[in-house]
């Protein structure tokens, strides 16, 4: 049984503007070196130290990233809606064992369709150690809608800026440093189809997982003052009820929106259970992870 001691260790908090993708001090820090140590575990995984969720819009290459990291060959296809259920696999990196969960592709986490629920419930109740949001570099604006929503629920986000080859082909250039600074989370440009940038992605996941990098995600600010007041009032009440809830603001927003799913999870105490999850061991947590659909 492996306790999650690492993220409780006191690590020097880096300012969010200084998100470094890799540490290039000699061979040890070189991504190529680490990549050689990547052990693809496929589905053969007994125990894991960290859970990584893979979210993103449909058809951004989530399954391709998933396959590249886990060595699985989940069927990928060039059409939206390929993954409707969760796929799980594992890999070992930096002496830690990771379980990776490929979530269905969605445009948002607000609506009520089944695939959006699967994705949202996993990020909320499954409490992954890291959530990787795969975004399409050539359609950044639309893809960021989802990333911003994920960042409302969890801090531990890594943005995988995928399909940069396609963006280039369309004459687009994305400044990933600027993006990382604006979002407050690590951003890794990749081209998963051609195996580019995956080493850096692994490093970023690892750094967030062990707590070496603590993302400070930007929260949506552009609400009207009246809205803001209502959200704040409700949030303080939520916090009163669940003092340790990491995403109290998001829960308040959802309550204000009349989200049936969230109301239900407050009624049946499911949300209350969440707060204690952090203190549980990996094994116990695994049991609590809801079997979605």
């Amino acid at each position, binding site marked *: 049984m492996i306790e999650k001691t690492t993220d409780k260790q006191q690590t020097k908090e880096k300012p969010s503007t200084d998100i470094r993708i890799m540490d290039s001090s000699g061979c040890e820090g070189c991504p190529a070196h680490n990549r050689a140590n990547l052990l693809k575990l496929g589905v053969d995984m007994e125990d894991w130290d960290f859970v990584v969720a893979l979210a993103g819009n449909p058809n951004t290459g989530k399954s391709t990233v998933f396959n590249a990291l886990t060595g699985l*060959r989940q*069927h990928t296809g060039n059409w939206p809606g390929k993954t409707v259920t969760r796929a799980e696999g594992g890999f070992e990196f930096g002496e830690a064992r990771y379980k990776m969960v490929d979530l*269905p592709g969605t445009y948002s986490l*607000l609506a009520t369709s089944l695939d959006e629920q699967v994705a949202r419930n996993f990020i909320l109740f499954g409490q992954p150690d890291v959530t990787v949001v795969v975004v399409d570099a050539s359609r*950044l*604006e639309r893809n960021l809608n989802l990333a911003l929503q994920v960042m409302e629920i969890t801090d531990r986000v890594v943005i995988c800026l995928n399909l940069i080859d*396609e963006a280039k082909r369309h004459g687009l250039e994305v400044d990933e440093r600027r993006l990382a600074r604006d979002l407050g989370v690590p951003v890794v440009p990749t081209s998963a189809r051609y195996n580019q940038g995956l080493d850096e992605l692994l490093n970023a996941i690892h750094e967030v997982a062990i707590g070496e990098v603590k993302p400070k995600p930007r929260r949506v600010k552009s609400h009207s003052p009246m809205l803001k007041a209502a959200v704040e009032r*409700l949030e303080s009440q939520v916090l009163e009820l669940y003092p340790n809830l990491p995403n109290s603001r998001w829960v308040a927003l959802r309550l204000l*929106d009349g989200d049936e799913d969230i109301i239900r999870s407050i009624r049946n105490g499911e949300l209350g259970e969440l707060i204690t999850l952090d203190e549980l061991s990996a094994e116990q947590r695994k049991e609590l992870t809801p079997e979605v659909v």
Partner: protein
Amino acid sequence: MTEKATTVNDLLKNAQELRAQVGGDFHEKVVEGIFTEAAQIADRSVTRAGEQPRFDLDRWIDRIVTDKRWGFVLMILLFTLVLWITIIGANYPSQFLSSILLDKVHPWLKAGAAAIGMPWWLDGLLIDGMYMATAWVVSVMLPPMAIFFPLFTLLEDFGYLPRVAFNLDALFRRSGAHGKQALSMMMGFGCNAAGVVATRIIDSPRERLIAIITNNFALCNGRWPTQILIATVFIGGLVPAHLAGLISAASVVGVALLGVGFTFAVSWFLSRTMLRGEVSTFSLELPPYRPPRIWQTIYTSLIDRTIYVLWRAIVFAMPAGAAIWLVANVNIASVSIAEHIINFLNPFGLLIGLNGVILLAYIVAIPANEIVIPTVLMLTVLVTGMDAGAGRGVMFDMQAGSDILNLFTAGGWTLLTAVNLMLFSLVHNPCSTTIYTIYKETGSVKWTTVAAVLPLVMGFVLTFFVTQIWQIVAAVL
């Protein structure tokens, strides 16, 4: 405990009050906030390098493949081409495999069994039953699958399938179904169980049920080989040799399109009777065309689909082979059990232009459509008493093509039987895996029953009318 419960209620009550205060457009405001933020961030980090290329290849291709008229023509041509390559290409490896597995290995196994003094019934059960069923599955099914699936996956990888969905969307909407049903139908062309799971992308329960019930009309992996074989043997045989491949391919495309037609018709029927309601709208993103990574696609589609389907067929074919050997060799009143059943089913079978053998094969093949052809062959050999040295109740060595035609003709098959078999293969109950998946997805015995029984009844009605009309026309001519 009670104290906390009241706080929870307070919170929810408070939320409700505040919701009334902020007004009904709260949801829109939140979404707007997110969109504005996303637009600002994206705007800051994205730069457009120089001028946009004047010629946009993607848009040019899209204009052609989603054209109102030419889109459909192109679609039919593309699928015919894929099937034509499959039919032409599958012939040679199929002959090669059957010459090895049936001509060489089978006698060798028999000789081996005789040498170690294996009792006749065990030898029959293992070699003539289980081995032969498996050998048939491999030699008849593996070659077309190994060609068809990679080709289909290449089209998928390229990004063509969402365009097909786009083309079909208007038709789906007109039949009262959800446009995304086109995508779950596409999945159904691979496997209906997967297609049923894929309907989860449809939000409305009503439209989702329609998609689940009609998914069976998409020809699945297990049925493509049946269609291809019967079309090659019977329909291809009607025309001169150089046209045979093309005509067979066209007839398989015809059956597949008929399936699409039934999907629309049944969706239309359901949305006006049992599942009435509004059509919901959605936006479908046409993904960019991506050059397929040919080798990787071929590799993964071989591993994921071909080997998967083949394995499933073998798993079901082995016990089925044993069972068929048993019913064919255990006699009651000096007639085998199989013949009793076939004779019992024959009158009804002939009424709908099939025969007892085919109906029995469809009962045996409920777990997997893949084994229909091997079962039909095995049972036909038994009924006709054709003896090719391997004995009654044994599937003996034949090569794809004329030998199978001879066998079927001896079994009383006509062109009508072949046409009806192709139709019945399209319109009958889903396999047990799919039925179970439907039950899991809907959680309803009622809708599972509808999904299982409706196509079966339709199949009977369809083949009955085809047979009656065929016979009337034949009598007049």
